[in-house]
């Protein structure tokens, strides 16, 4: 030990010294003005917590479903590791969470710009799918070599933000034909998706569009017409689009004894309220897509219907949390973009659960964050990152009337409303 000359001062404890070195007390504290700290205090941490809860449930669920799929895809020459999909899910989460956090740190204008650029990119890729895409299980949805992605998965969140941006023009200039423009955009995507065929994604895109024009303030008359149009479209699809005919027939008239819907129902109900216990499921091995479309049923068998209810409630908590906070939001673009993203996430979750519960014809749609998704996990994280970025707000803004008036006028960075206003008033 080196000799210490100043014996008069009481020596600082090593722990305190270390803490000071790390500047822990100041870090992320309310006085911390660093970019990271501002992000942390502006972030909807409750929402982020719910997302992490979903990811955790997803990991457990994929671990439960993985052996069923691994066994189905094993053959005499290769035996897949029973937990293969669990490990893969873990890897995609490790890649996806940083993407989500990075996107959530973007300022609102940059997040919007990113979404619009990505929307153009993935729309282009979607156009390429019929030309250079690869087929899996009879549907041509994938693109790429080695690492394949579904452009439609990535398009969903950025489409929601872009559509909100287009519709928000109306607030600036009421004469712009935004509804017509949005219809063309949605219609183009819809036709491309039906060609794949991908009925589930088509419904999600149309759902986002419908919710956004609802928010855009269209008259009740036009909304009524579009609801009628949607129903008419479904009827037309039933009669002229074979995929829809088959799916809806199965749903209404019941499938065969060996239909996947029947297998899913047996799996879901075989565990009762409290389930058979982790790893004790037997019916799951009969499911064709245990780790993706029917993971909700696997949760039902092993963890019980109460756990299923828990998953549904977490999804609703996310939806409610986001939408309730929008009620005191004043920027139309933010309201629409956030609602669009929530519709995408919540709608997909509700449809997937409804399919598992036989309330909806089977769709080929995954349960966000719960199902094994592969590369679409990155798309999901991108969407959630956008959601987190757009729901960030200065926690002090609404607390003092002074701040409300003052900061808004001055265009303080980090305050979304002011940034928007100052730009437009020029």
């Amino acid at each position: 030990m080196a000799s210490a000359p100043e014996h008069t001062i009481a020596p600082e404890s090593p722990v305190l010294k270390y803490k000071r070195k790390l500047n822990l007390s100041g870090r992320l504290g309310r006085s911390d003005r660093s970019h990271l700290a501002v992000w942390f205090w502006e972030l909807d941490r409750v929402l982020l917590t719910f997302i992490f809860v979903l990811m955790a449930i997803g990991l457990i669920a994929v671990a439960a479903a993985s052996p069923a799929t691994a066994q189905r895809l094993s053959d005499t020459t290769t035996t897949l590791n029973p937990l293969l999909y669990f490990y893969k899910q873990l890897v995609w989460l490790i890649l996806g969470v940083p993407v989500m956090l990075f996107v959530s740190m973007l300022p609102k204008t940059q997040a919007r710009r990113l979404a619009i650029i990505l929307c153009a990119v993935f729309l282009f890729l979607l156009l390429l799918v019929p030309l250079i895409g690869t087929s899996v299980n009879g549907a041509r949805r994938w693109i790429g070599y080695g690492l394949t992605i579904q452009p439609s998965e990535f398009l969903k969140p950025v489409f929601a933000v872009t559509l909100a941006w287009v519709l928000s023009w109306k607030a600036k200039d009421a004469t712009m034909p935004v509804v017509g423009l949005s219809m063309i955009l949605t219609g183009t995507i819809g036709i491309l998706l039906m060609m794949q065929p991908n009925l589930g994604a088509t419904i999600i895109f149309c759902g986002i569009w419908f919710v956004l024009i609802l928010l855009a303030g269209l008259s009740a008359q036009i909304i009524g017409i579009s609801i009628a149009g949607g129903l008419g479209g479904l009827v037309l699809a039933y009669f002229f689009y074979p995929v829809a005919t088959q799916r809806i027939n199965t749903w209404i008239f019941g499938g065969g004894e060996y239909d996947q819907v029947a297998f899913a129902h047996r799996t879901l109900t075989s565990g009762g309220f409290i389930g058979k216990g982790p790893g004790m499921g037997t019916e799951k091995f009969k499911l064709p897509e245990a780790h993706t479309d029917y993971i909700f049923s696997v949760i039902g068998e092993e963890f019980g219907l109460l756990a299923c209810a828990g998953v549904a409630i977490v999804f609703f908590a996310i939806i409610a949390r986001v939408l309730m906070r929008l009620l005191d939001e004043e920027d139309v673009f933010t309201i629409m973009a956030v609602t669009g993203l929530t519709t995408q996430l919540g709608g997909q979750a509700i449809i997937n659960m409804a399919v598992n519960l036989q309330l909806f014809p089977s769709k080929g749609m995954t349960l966000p964050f719960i199902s094994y998704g592969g590369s679409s996990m990155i798309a999901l994280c991108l969407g959630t990152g956008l959601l987190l970025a757009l729901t960030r707000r200065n926690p002090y803004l609404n607390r003092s009337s002074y701040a409300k008036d003052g900061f808004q006028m001055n265009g303080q960075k980090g305050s979304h409303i002011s940034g928007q206003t100052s730009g437009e008033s020029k």
Partner: protein
Amino acid sequence: MTALVGNGGRPRLANIKQKVTLVAQVRLIVVLGLFALAITTLLLRLFYYGAFEGQVQRSLVSTDVIPVRADLVDRNGVPLARNMKMRALRVIPEKILGDKNKLAMQLAEIFPDTPASTFLKAMKKDRPSYLRRRLVPEDANKVHALGEVGFEFPREDERFYPQHGLAAHVLGYVDADRKGVMGMEKALEERLVDPAKLAEPAALSIDIRVQAALESELGATMKKHSARGATGVVLDVHTGEVLAMASLPEFNPNKIDATALRHQVNDVTYSVYELGSTFKPLTVAAALDAGTVTNLATRYNATEPLKVGRFRIKDDHAQGRYLNVPEALVHSSNIVTARLADNLGKERMEEMFRKLDFDDRPEIELVEAGRPLWPQNWGRVTNMTVSYGHGIAVTPMHLASAYAALVNGGIWRPATLEKVGPDKADPGRRVFKASTSARIRQLLRMIVSDGTGRKADAPGFRIGGKTGSAEKPKGGGYSKSSLVSTFAAAFPMDDPKYVVITMLDEPKGIAETFGQRTAGWTAAPVVKRLVPRIGPMLGVVPDESRDVDVSELTPLLWRPKGES
């Protein structure tokens, strides 16, 4: 300051913005309400399922463990038939979305053994049908990857025979509805589907090790002699249990196709043959029993063929001299045996054959039991020809049961393919005197040690037996070129435990046997190779210091001078 510059137009724009925002917020509540409604519906459905449709089985033992049809095992518990869950491929024509022609081509690529037209036909039917059963996982995945919703992959219980062709004729197989078609699968149908006994496998009397040895030895010899078929049976003489039963060529009960159907006749229990000289010990036993032969040293004239009416009885191994009974058996003399039967009389001969059940289907569980060809008119000539195994046709199973009675002390028992517990054996009925049986043991042993059956003599196993080479009936007469060569044996002769019958259908002579195709050159060597393989498994230890005592009979065999 931007705020000041834009002050003029601001109130109007803000007004519009406020209005738009207000509408958006009101409708936001509507959207939230819709989501709440949807989630509530899901929750209600979940609780409905939990309350009314949940069938919880919280047991460590899955019902999957209990098979839908009881397993078949051998006497030591080795599985012979069991159930496996396998995927089938089913098509529901009305659900097919893709191009049927293209799908049929793709299926034909995955299953090269079936033409595309077969698949196309099934896809064009009105009703759902099976395209394949027993899909291997690779193929199931390939078909699944076609992405056609009109295909289903039901998991079904399939009967699986882990020993493949081994004991195929004993086991039989089941049809697509898992109903027994032949063999023990059919014979035990009720037992196998009895819900109370599903978990408990049905034990057969078969010992699969013995079965494998029998089939391999028979198969090798059948190939060597280019025979049409080969059959064999190993029977426990004290219980009537069949330890092995083979009818080659065999078939694979896992794959029933045209070849399998051609080979599924069980020649041991269903086909009847004129078994020739193997009947001679039966005639001798009947004569000893009746007392028409009291002195084994008595000689009978075998110098020339025996003329009865227009019928001439000849010897194949003619000795050209007078022969006593031991010599008649050792040299397989038709003439002497016919004379013994003639002395005995047709009533007593017929009675003996009836006691051995030669007038009815063999006594065994199998449905495939052939009716013997019983002489329509049992006259003097017939009586003499049946004494050496002509003019009557029975199954090899009949012969095995008769030989068991010959050597076990004279008790005839029905044969069985079900495992018999200790002391549960059928009491049977007496056919021969115990003293007759003891004498026959000596004679059978002498045939192997000194006679036509020498090629069956495995050192230390004390094998005894009788050859039989019968010409096959063809077009009203007998064919000189096609033989049925049989060897009926028992071991160990000092305390007989097992009867072994081996039979070759139309063996061809080869250089190794100097062109010979008679039983002594074809069927007997099978026994010589087989018994040392199965004896130790069955608890028969080779011992050259032990044998049945034939010293009192040995002097009766005349030997040329110089031969010891």
